């Protein structure tokens, strides 16, 4: 188990800058999730750590050892791919044994270890099969077993669950978290799925256009997003973001004026953000809340909750209401947001303004 450190790492592909001046520390024995939309550079980051790509500038360390110029086969990393990348012409047993065979491990030891890891991942009865005879979930487990059997210093996972169906994804997600806790291995997991990131991570790194947006534990990412991108990316439905005008230090939104106990510029523009689950929809304004009048546009009944889409001054916001809430399209309502739940952002830089 090691700590992975990147210092001033830049990666270019031709003229395209995939990663720009990255400084990061992946803590030893922790589950770190790198989260970003497609094309954000998150997979590039993973392949840099694996040694498949070499950084254009900067250094990579495993603990105190500089591995920047070390080829992948000398780094002792386990890598799980989105498409599993199993060896199709080998049985499950041969797939898992392959890394050990390359290390010239004695046959008896190989046998022992393959069975051990197969038991851990509940694939013992599949050892004689070929990859094409397995389901997606089973192939995924085999890929994981192959990565774990060599007892890697770091376990790298590149969207390992994206090719599975939704139900299986949630199931394996929990198993993966348990497994990482059991083994205490340093895990770096790349995904575009914010729910996966929230569920698995000890720490989330949000990346966008090759630049780190925020690095924090899930709770902090959720409650205190560093900027507009993080606020808009995390959460389902995502954070409501509304551009508003400042008039004499008060926020003008949807035809009403909100005064917030925070120091704000006297005029200009500001972006107001709040999470759908933090606001409530009522017939009247509430005390200690920012109350914005609006009109119900759509009601989606999800069973455990209702998702209301409300028009505020020409823009749509989503608010989660309890399943018992009785609203219908056309209702005139107030969206009430507790003051402490309101997030403010600078429309120019996107950075959050601390209240």
């Amino acid at each position, binding site marked *: 188990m090691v700590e992975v450190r990147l210092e001033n790492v830049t990666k270019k592909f031709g003229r395209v800058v995939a990663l720009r001046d990255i400084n990061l520390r992946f803590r030893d024995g922790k589950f770190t999730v790198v989260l970003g939309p497609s094309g954000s550079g998150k997979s590039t980051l993973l392949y840099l750590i694996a040694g498949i790509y070499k950084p254009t500038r900067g250094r990579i360390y495993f603990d105190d050892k500089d591995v920047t110029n070390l080829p992948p086969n000398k780094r002792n990393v386990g890598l799980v791919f989105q498409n599993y990348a199993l*060896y*199709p012409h080998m049985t499950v047993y041969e797939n898992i044994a392959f890394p050990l065979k390359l290390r010239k491990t004695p046959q008896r030891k190989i046998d022992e270890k393959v069975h051990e890891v197969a038991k851990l991942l509940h694939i013992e009865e599949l050892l004689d099969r070929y990859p094409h005879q397995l389901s997606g979930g089973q192939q995924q487990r085999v890929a994981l077993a192959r990565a774990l059997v060599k007892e890697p210093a770091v376990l790298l996972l590149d969207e390992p669950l994206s090719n599975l169906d939704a139900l299986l994804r949630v199931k394996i997600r929990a198993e993966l978290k348990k497994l990482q806790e059991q083994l205490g291995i340093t895990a770096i997991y790349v995904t575009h799925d914010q729910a996966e990131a929230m569920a698995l991570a000890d720490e989330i790194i949000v990346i966008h256009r090759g630049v780190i947006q925020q690095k924090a534990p899930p709770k902090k990412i959720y409650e205190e997003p560093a900027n507009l991108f993080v606020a808009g990316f995390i959460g389902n439905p995502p954070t409501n973001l509304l551009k508003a005008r400042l008039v004499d230090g008060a926020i003008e939104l949807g035809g009403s004026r909100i005064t917030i106990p925070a120091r704000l510029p006297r005029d200009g523009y500001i972006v107001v953000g709040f999470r759908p689950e933090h606001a409530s929809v009522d017939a009247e304004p509430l005390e200690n809340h920012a109350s914005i009048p609006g009109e119900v546009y759509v009601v989606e009944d999800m069973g455990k909750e209702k998702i209301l889409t409300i028009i505020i001054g020409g823009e749509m916001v989503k608010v989660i209401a309890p399943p018992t809430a009785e609203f219908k399209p056309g209702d005139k309502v107030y969206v009430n947001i507790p003051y402490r739940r309101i997030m403010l952002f600078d429309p120019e830089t996107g950075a959050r303004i601390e209240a």
Partner: protein
Amino acid sequence: MNPLQRLRARRREREEPLIDVETIPRRRLTIVLAIAVGLASLPMLITYILLILTSFSNTAGMLTISDLAHYVPTIQPWIDFLEGKVEPTAGHLYTTMEILGIILNTLIVAAGVSIVVVLTSTMAGYAFSRIRFRGRKALMQLVMILHAFPGVALIIAVYALYVWSLAALPPSAWNTYAFIYVILSRASLEIPMSIWLMKGFFDKIPWEVEWAAIVDGASRIRVWREIVLPLVKPGIAALSIFAFLAGWEDFIYVWVFLKPRDIYTLATFIEEQVRNLETAYFPVVAAAGTLYLIPTIIFFITTQHLLLETYAGGMKA
């Protein structure tokens, strides 16, 4: 619904099984196509059957359908052929060793073409599939154009080069050189298409599979040998067979470069025998022709199963 109605309904179902709308015309089309293909290939099929039957007969000319009524099978033409009695009235024109030599020559050319094509096009195909070098696209297009050139069109230049290079060698090496020259020039006609074929096979292997093996601790050479090659095995097999047949069937290059040196393959041998139609003894020539067909028949049976055999699982693209 009472039991009787249910029974009737079931019977109706059995008589008119439920067929998806779009499968009806397709099935009919299949039948029509099968009949058309069958009819179209009938003349060829009959010719081949007559050829084989002729090689087991003692007619004076080629066997015809009307001869089939009094057909008596005999293996005499095969014995005559292997003993070199190609024109029975003229006695032994060849020795058995010479006949076997002709078969061996054909095998050498075929196997040589096959080996050269497989070695070059697996390597070139891998490079085209995996390495993004400058001018890659232009080179691939050039390869495609090369494939479009007919071999006959190139033969004058190829022959000029041959004569020119021959002068640099001692006459004792000329026979060997002629063989090598035929193999290389025949192979180079096959290589363009083979490169494309192999590139297609390599393209189907995701990069990740190779990366996985490298991360697992394998060297590039080892990845190539233990991961990549086994996955393109069907491609290599198909390729080597096609190239073998191309060498086996080649006439023009063998005729231009080997025949003047008195080196015959089955193709030029058969051509020599049927050239004088008055003296040609057909059953013996038919025996040679049948022998000439055998690899094609064997290989077509084997390639069909090889080309269908592909590994699909464990690597979603």
